[in-house]
């Protein structure tokens, strides 16, 4: 359990926030730039001293203003992967990796050098110097270096931000690997909801230096706090389900979601895998009678639970499809024409090609 309850004033910016996150797994710190995410992880790492409050991991007090405890960063045993990797330019990759390992005195080695090299695909880079590495390679080395210091918690501060957009997809699977194969709690800072959705179990939403929301990523995906940050274009409920069938000929996988089956592009999915899918509110269609004769592969029957205005001329229709709620964005015009109302039966339609399933195991 990571417990953070701190306040910090820095010039015009002030942060006052408190949250707890269950370990292990990935907790995302999510928010726009300038909301205090980096300030928060700096305080957890011990690189920035809070004005008030306390920081604890399980029974270990790392900082407590009232008790006068402030464990120096070098003794906290917290790994930190910086946005800009910060590899040591005068050391080869191998020696960068070993830098922390040599200084991890007293902590039981959980990750071996060979395992980390294998996990992050670093074997071919070991003899190289940081200057010759690509952005993604640098971040992988930085992650390996932090892991080999045998940390009890790993902080990742937007590790994808300094990598060009086309290459971000290459690093994400490595992060998924870490989450699935290491029993290590991680705090992942991001302003991209898609990254959060693929990696994190729970998320803390930060706004103007305060916690605007905190909870399970699926529940939070429908919260006002997240909606406020991602905007209506990228808004969509995140759902989880087991892959039940694979139709290889059609290239589709069927995932059990609520009381229905959702067809998504198969990609690398295998039966039995737990999968996460985000259904963007703007991609969904709502029908008030059972639809027939459509090309749309997904039609999930449900009940309208709630309607909320979304901007001037649109509404978000929260529809329950069997203990799972989806958000559908409809125009004001459609709402009045169909006379949408709470309690009404409805069918949520979505094209299989607009859905990507991401394997998610916890």
């Amino acid at each position, binding site marked *: 359990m990571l417990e953070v309850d701190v306040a910090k004033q820095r010039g015009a910016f002030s942060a006052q926030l408190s949250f707890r996150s269950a370990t292990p797994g990935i907790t995302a710190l999510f928010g726009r730039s300038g909301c205090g995410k980096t300030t928060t992880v700096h305080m957890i*790492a*011990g*690189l920035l001293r809070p004005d008030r409050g306390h920081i604890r991991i399980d029974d270990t007090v790392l900082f407590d203003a009232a008790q006068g405890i402030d464990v*120096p*960063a*070098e*003794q*906290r*045993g*917290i*790994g*930190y992967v*910086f946005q*800009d990797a*910060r590899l*040591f*330019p*005068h050391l080869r990759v191998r020696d960068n990796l070993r*830098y*922390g390992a040599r*200084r*991890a*005195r007293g902590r039981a080695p959980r990750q071996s050098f060979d395992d980390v090299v294998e996990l992050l695909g670093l074997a071919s880079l070991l003899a190289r*110097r*940081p*200057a*010759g590495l690509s952005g993604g390679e640098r971040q992988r080395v930085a992650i390996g*270096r*932090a892991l080999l*210091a045998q940390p009890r918690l790993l902080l990742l501060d937007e590790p994808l931000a300094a990598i060009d957009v086309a290459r971000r997809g290459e690093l994400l699977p490595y992060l998924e690997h870490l989450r699935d194969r290491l029993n290590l709690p991680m705090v992942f800072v991001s302003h991209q909801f898609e990254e959060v959705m693929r990696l994190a179990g729970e998320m803390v939403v930060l706004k103007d230096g305060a916690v605007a929301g905190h909870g399970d990523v699926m529940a939070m995906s429908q919260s006002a706090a997240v909606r406020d940050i991602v905007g209506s274009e990228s808004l969509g409920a995140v759902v989880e389900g087991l892959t039940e069938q694979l139709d290889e000929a059609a290239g589709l996988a069927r995932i059990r979601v609520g009381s229905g089956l959702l067809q998504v592009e198969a990609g690398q999915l295998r039966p039995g895998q737990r999968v996460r899918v985000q259904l963007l509110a703007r991609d969904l269609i709502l029908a008030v009678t059972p639809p027939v004769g459509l090309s749309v592969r997904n039609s999930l029957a449900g009940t309208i639970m709630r309607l909320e205005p979304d901007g001037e001329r649109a509404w978000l229709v929260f529809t329950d499809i069997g203990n799972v709620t989806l958000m559908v964005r409809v125009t004001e015009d459609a709402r009045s024409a169909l006379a949408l109302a709470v309690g009404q039966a409805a069918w949520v339609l979505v094209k299989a090609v607009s859905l990507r399933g991401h394997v998610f195991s916890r």
Partner: protein
Amino acid sequence: MLLSADEWQALRLSLEVALWSLLWNLPVATAVAWVLVRRRFPGRTLADAFVHLPLVLPPVLTGYLLLILFGARGPIGGWLQRSFGVHLIFTTAGTVLAVAVMTFPLMVRAIRLTLEGIDPGLEEAARTLGAGPLDRFFSITLPLMLPGILAGAVTAFAAGLGEFGAVITFVSNIPGVTRTLPLALYTALQVPNGDATAARLAITSFTLGLAGLVLSEWLSRALRHQLGRGAVHA
């Protein structure tokens, strides 16, 4: 080119003095550069200016100030003499001091420049990997400062060989003791028939100075190359 015994003596003395002052200056200049770049304290600008004073003051004035401070009756010189029996006036040790003071700012400047190009974030990263302050300095900061330290050292050494004003003012012009190359050159110019000696000493000084500058440039380039392009974000 053959030098006379006196000329050799001046050359050897110059090399000796420049080397000793370099050895004294290396750790001090590195520490001072680090403090000036990495620490924030009241009076930092003033301290910075003070370090650089010998660059802008007339060397004769620096020599005079040394005389006041380190002379037999000066506050520091008197104490050194009473407590340790160290004499600085008219001695080779005093020559080393004068050259060290004059070349100090050159070294600090070169080291500072490199240090300013080193991302302090690297030291933060080292902290999170378990490195304490001294460990961070020796494993990260110092190796990255090497190009600047070497360049500064070579420049200071070359400049030290040629220091004139402060030396002659502080420790006078004693053959074999304080008469370095430039002092010997000056002396040769003062006597009749000294032209040949002056010419040989001039060529020696010129060659040493040029070699020093070329070496300094070459060293810093080689090191920078070894560290890779990402090393210095200047």
